[in-house]
């Protein structure tokens, strides 16, 4: 690492110290809400400082198991996220290979038109999308939650670039054996693209897991909510008289799986997110 070679003067120590303090500040809110989640909600209404004292209780988590729809929402989120991730990767690999290797007429024009789609934010088409799914009577279905997320051009873009970087000679040999184009793709080229697929999969997974606006307006039946929307719905009550402890237990419960996954796969997650951002 480059910076190792330079000495560590005073200013360097100040920099490190301030970042360490910042890191503590970064962590405090997390610790705080975990604390709240172990407190009786009514006690918090009467005395806001109760969080610093005993007794602590598991009742919010117990309530969570009984009342909340978190289980259903978690299931919905998993269905949507996993399906979307698998489909995005599959479709992007196919299209990426197509754009990289098949020289159909007008290919470059079509590819540029697709690239221009990178500039269309989903937020700008949300109203007409809602109308379309109205017309098809398809809101509150998994299809509605999944399909619009498959149209983003980022995956195609990523895979096209990756396939182009793979030398053509690797495929030439197979071509002599008269293998079909799909077999060449499937058996020879695709396995080489696994790193890019992993990047795309992780990025899509995160993106889809955290999607908010589209599920908010499309999933209007509580049993079709995703985790994000379900949690959003319950927190409209945060400044009502009670339930603070319960809400924080929800946040902890819902946030934990992603944090654990992240800690296990952080190298890949960071690479995927950074790679996607740079594109």
């Amino acid at each position, binding site marked *: 690492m480059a*910076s190792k070679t330079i000495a560590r003067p005073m200013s360097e120590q100040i920099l490190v110290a301030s970042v360490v303090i910042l890191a503590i500040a970064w962590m405090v809110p997390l610790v705080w809400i975990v604390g709240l989640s172990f407190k009786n909600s009514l006690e918090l209404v009467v005395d806001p400082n109760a969080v610093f004292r005993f007794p602590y209780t598991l009742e919010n988590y117990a309530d969570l198991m009984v009342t909340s729809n978190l289980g259903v929402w978690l299931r919905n989120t998993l269905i949507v996220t996993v399906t979307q991730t698998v489909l995005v990767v599959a479709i992007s690999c*196919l299209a990426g290979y197509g754009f990289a290797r098949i020289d159909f007429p007008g290919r470059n024009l079509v590819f540029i038109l697709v690239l221009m789609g990178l500039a269309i934010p989903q937020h700008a*088409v949300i109203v007409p999308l809602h109308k379309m799914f109205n017309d098809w009577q398809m809101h509150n279905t998994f299809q509605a939650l999944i399909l619009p997320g498959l149209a983003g051009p980022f995956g195609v873009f990523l895979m096209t670039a*990756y396939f182009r970087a793979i030398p053509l000679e690797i495929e030439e040999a197979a071509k002599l054996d008269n293998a079909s184009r799909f077999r060449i793709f499937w058996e020879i080229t695709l396995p080489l693209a696994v790193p890019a697929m992993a990047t795309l999969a992780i990025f899509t997974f995160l993106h889809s897991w955290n999607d908010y606006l589209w599920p908010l307006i499309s999933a209007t039946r509580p049993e079709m909510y995703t985790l994000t929307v379900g949690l959003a719905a319950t927190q409209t009550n945060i400044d009502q008289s009670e339930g603070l402890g319960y809400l924080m237990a929800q946040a902890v419960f819902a946030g934990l799986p992603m944090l654990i996954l992240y800690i296990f796969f952080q190298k890949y997650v960071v690479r995927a997110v950074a790679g996607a951002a740079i594109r």
Partner: protein
Amino acid sequence: MTDMTSTAAGMTAAATPRLKSWSWTELLFVAPYLLLYVVFLVYPLGLGFIMSFQYFDLFAGQAEFIGLENYQQLFSDRIFQGAVVNTFKFVIFTVPTFVALGLLIALALNRQTWWAATLRTLFFASNVLSVTIVTLIWRAVYLPQKGLLQNFLDVFGIQNIALLQDPNWALQAIAVTTIWWGIGLPMVLFLAALQQIPGEIYEAAELDNASPWQTLWHITIPSIWRTVVLVTIIQIIAQFQVFGQINLMTAGGPNNSTRSMVQFVYEAGFRQWTAGFASAAAQVLFVIMIVAAGLQFWVSRRKQEF
């Protein structure tokens, strides 16, 4: 990864040599995606454009052509003007902070020690949380009287702080939340860039007795200038579309001080049942995004200059 996936590389499709002539069946490679692209992105874009010239009731499915009326109303609507201003303010609050703070953290954590690795993990961790969890956490932080912030300020005898209820501070409070949520990305991008800088440059600087400040200004920053620009643009594009935090923390209030453009589109289209009007606002958002994306394209094509 940067080179491989850069837009510039994507644009050189013509240079790829031909393997063999194509056949119709091979269009099946691109057909599924193109179909999705047209149906769920191109078509709605056109439909939204048409809707922006209509009175459109999303829920009754009733439409009526009204020409430019939506646009006339939009440009004279004070709430919309406010939303545009708020969105720009939000970008100004967040983007420079993302760049400066991201770089600062990256500089401090660019070393192979266990604590640096731990802190890198920590700063990036909030990135994987969804907006609803982030806002749950931060609403609890900002709660009047019993929030974490108030508890902290009590130590200094500062009473009755209610940032989200104060029009002078609510947008900044949401900006802080956003930075807490998203600082991981600029940090890792800067870390990646810092690791590309050859060590010899620093050694030379050391021989010249350059101060750390001079090293930063004359060596580090010029070396990673392209990343600085990239982070800036990525953040501009992302923050222009801010919605979730605002909808969940203040819903545009107090006194309209936090309503962003996407929040405006959402409210007009889905809360207030004026979808045509909302579509007109979405077109304005779209134009701004096109400009930002064009900027990004321009920068990535001219990467050698940076």
